[in-house]
């Protein structure tokens, strides 16, 4: 189930330095949000805060749950249940098949979660047109790998997908087809997508674009719409 986002006075620090400061931000469930900005601006840091991977201050609520109030293991469990993560360089296990990669979460989930995860992984792989079979992903192209990674993120049926530069490792054509597939899949399932990207083709397909510069949100195409 997708969850609405509510942020106030979010602050991420590293020692004396403030990496990110977001005074106020909210987004409804099912929104497709892009984040852009220069290198080193704090985009990844923002994504990490949204997924509860780093310590932050303030309030960061997904639905009723304030991630910042949760203990680390509680955040891990929240991520497992509600979030799918997609990385620039895919981070797959080259030695495993696409199905095994996509169904990875089944390895650490309780027994009765496994069959649905595995079924959804297979379904997502099929919808994304990933070559079937027992071939390991080590021999896959970048586009095919990122599809496997997307299937992995979808397999647990999370409400939120967080992607960090999902097309940056792909050539133009592969990126474009991936963008089509990703956005239509996300829209069809009603999930929230937050994608950090420099890729205008991807950003064009999203509902709302945030610009982050020097650790602050300096632009928001959804601000006037809201």
């Amino acid at each position, binding site marked *: 189930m997708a969850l609405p986002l509510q942020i106030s006075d979010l602050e991420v620090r590293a020692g004396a330095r403030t990496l990110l400061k977001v005074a106020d931000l909210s987004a409804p469930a099912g929104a497709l949000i892009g984040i852009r900005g220069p290198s080193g601006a704090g985009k990844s840091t923002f994504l990490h805060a949204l997924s509860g*991977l780093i310590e932050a201050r303030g309030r960061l609520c997904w639905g009723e749950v304030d991630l910042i109030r949760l203990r680390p293991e509680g955040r*891990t469990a929240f*991520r497992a249940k509600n979030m799918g*993560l997609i990385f620039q360089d895919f*981070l797959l*296990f080259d030695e495993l098949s696409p199905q095994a990669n996509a169904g990875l*979460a089944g*390895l*650490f989930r309780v027994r009765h979660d496994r069959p649905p995860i595995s079924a959804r992984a297979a379904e997502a792989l099929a919808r994304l047109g990933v070559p079937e079979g027992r071939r390991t992903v080590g021999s896959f192209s970048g586009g095919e790998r990122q599809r496997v990674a997307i299937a992995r993120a979808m397999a647990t049926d999370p409400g939120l997908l967080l992607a960090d530069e999902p097309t940056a490792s792909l050539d133009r054509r592969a990126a474009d087809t991936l963008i089509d597939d990703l956005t239509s899949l996300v829209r069809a399932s009603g999930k929230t997508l937050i994608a950090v990207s420099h890729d205008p083709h991807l950003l064009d397909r999203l509902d709302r674009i945030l610009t982050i510069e020097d650790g602050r949100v300096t632009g928001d195409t959804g601000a006037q719409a809201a």
Partner: protein
Amino acid sequence: MREIWDGLPVLAQDLMSAGALLLPLLVVGGVLLRGFRPWSLIRALMWRFRWANLLFVLLIAVSTGMGIGLIAQERGLRTGSAQAAEKFDLVVTAPGSELTMMLAAVFLQPSAVPLLDGAAYDRIANHPQVQIAAPVAFGDSHDGAPVVGTIADFVTYLSDGEIEGRIFTRSGEAVAGAAIDLQIGDRFTPAHGRGGGADAEAHDGVQIEIVGRMARSGSPWDRAILIPIETVWEVHGLANGHPFEEGDRIGPPFAPDLFPGTPAVIVHADELWANYALRSEFTEAGETMAFFPGTVLADLYRVMGDVRQAMSVMSVVTQVLVAASVLLGLFILTRLFQRQLAMLRALGAPRRFVMAVVWGYGVSLLLAGTVLGLAFGYAAVLVLSRIVTERTDILVTASISWAEVTLALGFLSAMSLLSLVPALVVLTRPVVENLRQ
């Protein structure tokens, strides 16, 4: 408690102590792996670093195998030599080094030893408690095998009566040990001396016929050819222990003044307790020396015990070094795998799962190495035993005992606990830091 334990069968005790040793491994494994399925990821790790993994497994296997092999081989040699000396209750020789005399008389190692005269032999042979007093005379050989002169009773005693063919009944006949490549009816001419310096022509014209073959005893006597001691004396041109009127008779009693001498007398008493009395009786200053080969061997083992201890310390040190390098390797390899592990955490895998993967990977390597090491050790013992048996004719049986298995399991268990360290270290670095790089 103690009594219950002592009352258990040995196998049950062994199994239980092995179980106790493995307990830490089983507990850690149970706690870490419960509810998870890390095996496909462990297999992926195995495959990704296959050459390094192979190296680790071999390293563990070789060091474990060497430790096990050394201990088992040493024990095999000890029991084998004790068994080879079993029939030799008491040995009487001229005074000298007990060890030299034992090696010559019991293990048939070539050496020049002084002789006992007829009077000395007579005193021993006529002692009421002595059942067998066998003179043994060596110095000749055939094809490298010692030709030993003795009496028929001793041959029967030595082989427990298990002789194919028959015992020698007159001078010029011989009974061959089981390892001798001569058949009944074959004839040979003994060479004078043994080894490289043996003189094949010295006894030209002498023909000795094999009339019997002894069953295998697992001692150097398997490679000996036993002939009447009279024959030994005769081919050396000496008196043969009997006056002319006795004709062809062989065996005791011998006439003391016609007895040319014997390097050693093997004594067997009817009663075990008599041996102690006999030993002190036959130990006469300047005349004779009596000793128990079993005691001499025990002394030898005691001296060797220090060497053994040094050996076990060395093998433990080797094990520790191997363990350290394997641990270091695990650190390095998990470092290389750190992004994937961080990704697992980012995907919502609990810490315990990541630990299960890293630990399971380490323990799989250790387990493979240990099992292979046991196999290596067994193979090493097999080969070494064969070599030792071939060289010395002391039957060394290859066996891996519980002591070695316990050692290997202890190593495995301790290492499996240490493998928690790389698993824990992986978790100390923040997930995001590992994701970046």
